[in-house]
């Protein structure tokens, strides 16, 4: 069934994706203090630095694109309510590492964990 080219292709893709997974995880290890950046339609809506005092807090995000309710945990964050039809952001659960994102496409919402001592953000290059 599979030709030789198919097998090489499959092995190639597995290697590429595993390597980039390792790379993403590694680049997340370098940061000390973390904060949550909540972006709506590409612009930062709010940033929350992880702290003992914000554990268990919920933040409603109501914009022209939709409604999401975010819960902050101990160095982690998740979406607990959303009015989008697919609810993918709720199903994803907690994110905790730098670079991890929760995306809600219908509501144009991106929740991203960033490192505080990140000197050159990606946004500096693209703007």
């Amino acid at each position, binding site marked *: 069934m599979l030709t030789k080219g*198919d097998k090489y292709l*499959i092995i190639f*893709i597995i290697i590429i994706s595993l390597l980039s997974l390792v790379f993403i995880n590694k680049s997340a290890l370098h940061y000390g203090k973390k904060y949550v950046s909540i972006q709506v339609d590409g612009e930062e809506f709010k940033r929350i630095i992880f702290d003992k005092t914000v554990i268990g807090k919920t933040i409603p995000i109501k914009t022209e694109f939709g409604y999401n309710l975010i819960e902050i945990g101990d160095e982690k964050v998740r979406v607990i309510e959303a009015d989008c039809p697919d609810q993918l952001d709720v199903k994803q659960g907690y994110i905790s590492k730098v670079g991890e994102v929760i995306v809600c496409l219908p509501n144009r919402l991106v929740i991203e964990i960033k490192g505080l001592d990140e000197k050159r953000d990606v946004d500096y290059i693209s703007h």
Partner: protein
Amino acid sequence: MKGLQKLIFLSLLVSIGLALGIIESMMPVPFVAPGAKLGLSNMVILITLALFGFREAMTVGVLKSIVFTLVVGSVSSLFYSLSGSILSCFTMYIVYKYFSKTFSLIGVSIFGAVAHNFAQVLVASIMMNNIRIFSYLPILLLISLFTGYFVGLTSKFAIKNLKKTFKTIFF
């Protein structure tokens, strides 16, 4: 094959793709990664590509995306769907036309799935203005291996039987 018969068959393919897309959106996917889908409607594009050619496959892909948007009802999904099907159609055509000795239909389908995922992540990161969305890509690529394999295998059987049917009916 005559024009009218071709027209009818292509519209049948579009509606099959639409039905597959709707069934697929009802199916829960047992993966953690958000946005991962089986890509069943890619099967229709692959079958059209193998039976008719590039122009017809592109037509079916674009029509399917537009009609699917009308059914599901969110305009923003049109961009994701369109970009995915156009890029995957291009890629599958090039691989199918020029590298069909190296890659079987399964390989072609995996290429299509990879291109589809890449286009969607690209459009998402442009629309969200955030390049970090690319961190989803490795997981999506791994999943697209399995879905691409499944789609390729299924279309292989479908194409084999359809070619036989075409010979007895139309020629």
